[in-house]
């Protein structure tokens, strides 16, 4: 998946997460995360985001995430939506 522009998904409401994905030329996925449960789950949240991105073949991107206590599948779906928006794809294959 090729990222073309800034993609965003989610909200900053309770139990949700706001994800902003920006394409870069620099190598790697750089994630800046803000979370009230940083200490307990910070690493895990970052891992979910990174894994989701890698599963779509994205290697380079800057990610800004503001977490409000989202569970893993919310993090995953918000990341996917932000990715699709960033890649300008509006035909989702959610079943895959």
């Amino acid at each position: 998946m090729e990222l073309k522009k800034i993609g965003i998904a989610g909200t900053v409401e309770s139990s949700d997460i706001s994800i902003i994905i920006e394409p870069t030329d620099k190598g790697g996925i750089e994630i800046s995360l803000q979370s009230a449960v940083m200490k307990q789950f910070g690493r895990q949240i970052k891992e979910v985001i990174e894994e989701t991105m890698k599963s779509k073949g994205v290697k380079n991107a800057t990610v800004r995430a503001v977490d409000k206590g989202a569970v893993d599948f919310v993090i995953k779906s918000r990341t996917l939506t932000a990715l699709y928006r960033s890649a300008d794809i509006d035909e989702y294959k959610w079943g895959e």
Partner: protein
Amino acid sequence: MYKRDINIRTINLGRNSEKQKIIMFLKDHDLLFEEDIDYTIGVYQEDSLIGTGSLSGNVLKCIAVNGEFQGEGIFNKIISQLINTQYQRGNMHLFVFTGPENKKFFEDTGFREISSVDDKVSLLENDPKGIEKYVENLKRSKKEGAIISSIVMNCNPFTLGHQYLIEKAAKSSDIVHIFLVWEDRSLFPNDIRLKLLREGTSHLDNVIIHKGENYIISNSTFPSYFLKEENTVVKTHATLDIKLFVEYICPVLGINKRFVGREPNDPVTNEYNKAIMKLLPIYNIQVEEIPRLTVGEGVISATKVRKSIKEGNMESLKQLVPMTTYKYIVSDDAKPVIDKIRKDM
């Protein structure tokens, strides 16, 4: 109190009855509904208004929640809705102006403070590296010298007065950095103002032109400049704008001098100049005020240029602008802009 009872609606700003309710609500929370607002939402519980938030360009403003409902996530609901609307409009880079007592709430939703003035106002942006990126970009045009000057101008449009001020600065400096106000609220569009500034200074080889973007007299750093408010707010905003300039911009370019054109007419610009003259020397940046260039009995100003255009007085126009600007104004390309000036003013 169940959250499902709560709904958010976009306020039709064209309908006075709805708008008045928002204005009253903000007043109860010591906030003024600002005239440049282009989008407002209301949060309701059944039919009573319990919260509101607004947008103006890429700025979030006039956000308030009824005290009884604070701590129930209403604030974050408002912010989420405002941010999503901004993204739909294509505005990714957002700013908030707020009192320092509310700073924390915005920080909790992903904003970061970039500057503040005492206990009066705090400016936040949603990009954790926003201003650093701008500054990083500026750094590329850094040039060494003993006197590195700066000028901030709007050039709406570029006049002989602007040219005179820049020439004066260029003569007594090694390098002159010009920052063009980038907010697209002037009658002459951004790219035209930039083009005319470039053409009008092409004979000066020590002048470097930059876009001021979000960080120099923009809707985000200096909203009252565009609202033309005449009160203490102007002073606070001017101070914030100047702080950003000395803290972030001057160091990367090695700027140690600023030129300003004397402002005899516009009270807001005059207040801004006064703040510059007071504050910059504290940071070891010298300020030189240059009196306006005169023609006949009056000073040259962009306002006069627009007036001449409106009146179709080409003879007077010729005395106010360099040939480069004149050529543009009489060209076919300028037609839409000229029509707007004739209608607007």
